[in-house]
């Protein structure tokens, strides 16, 4: 009996050991890319589960005062709250990244809810964009 409890304790300790060392990996992300004047957007789905429940829709783009504005809506069909984050990157006409500060923006979308977003080109040279969306991956 005592040997059994020792074995259970060892198994429990081992499991806790593994859990203690586990770190949440960066979740695979989905990227959506568009270009000024292009009707289609490119989708790169790295997280099919996220893509099945979270849609990027109603994408509109136009240039105002020399800068490209892109408006889109993140729409969730989940019955629970979706906790995601997104990040936008901008490129010039030749495809070079425009180096401006960027960050993951946390968004919480209610059950079967949607979240409207607008991104604006950081400089007049920005004419293509890439939006990455992934499950929330916080530094805790």
């Amino acid at each position, binding site marked *: 009996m*005592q*040997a059994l*409890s*020792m074995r259970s*304790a*060892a198994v*429990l*300790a081992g499991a*806790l*050991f593994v*859990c*203690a*060392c586990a770190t949440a990996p*960066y979740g695979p992300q989905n990227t959506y890319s568009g270009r000024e004047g292009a009707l289609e957007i490119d989708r790169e789905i790295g997280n099919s589960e996220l893509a099945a429940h979270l849609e990027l829709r109603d994408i509109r783009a136009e240039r*105002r*005062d020399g*800068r490209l*504005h892109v408006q889109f809506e993140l729409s969730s069909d989940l019955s629970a709250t979706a906790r995601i*984050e997104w*990040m936008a990157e901008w490129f010039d006409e030749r495809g070079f990244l*425009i*180096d*401006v*500060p*960027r*960050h*993951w*923006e*946390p968004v919480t979308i209610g059950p079967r809810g949607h979240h409207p977003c607008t*991104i*604006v080109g*950081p*400089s*007049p040279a920005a004419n293509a964009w890439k939006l990455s969306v992934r499950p*929330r*991956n*916080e*530094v*805790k």
Partner: protein
Amino acid sequence: MNSKLLLPLLLLPLGACSSVGYGDPNAVETVNIDYGSTDLQSFAAKMVESMNTAPSLNYFEHPAKADDKRVIVYFGGIDNSTSEHIDTTSIRDSIQTALLKGGKFRFVATKQGQQEIGDQVAFQQGSGRVNPAQAKAFGKQLGADVVVYGTLRSIEKHKGRSLESGGMKTDDVYYKFTLQCDSIETAEVLWMEEKELRKTAKTGIFGG
């Protein structure tokens, strides 16, 4: 004897791992409810986007300006009206960096920059070490058209553990960051923007 081994065995995982590593500086951070890097980035991004798209800041006419009609900005201070110690110059730096890279605005040096410039001019003019033909003098600095400044405010609420809350403790903090741009000549407010953030932490009985 075996039971004496049990406790250390169960405590072993607690000290199992400690590590140091480089992370993504752009990642969302929720280590605790206090003001953090994600808040700074969100505030800065909103203000940069708003200033970049404000029609009232597209140009600034002045008789002394040549063809370049871009608005010349003096970035003043950002008051910290929260109860936390927050280095608000970091918000200012992030906004100014992004705006400079965007190319819509021109900036003149802040107080820190003026101090450095003053020291350098004094050195060039007075040390006798600098070629007089190359020594810089005062009197040619750009005159700012506008001043940008702002305030960071917060409202904090705390609710202790109770039977009603199931032993949960709730901490809530609401931040409001306001930034505005005034014409130096006329004192007219040309642009203003605000961004709000709310952070809520719920801590269970065994939480910190």
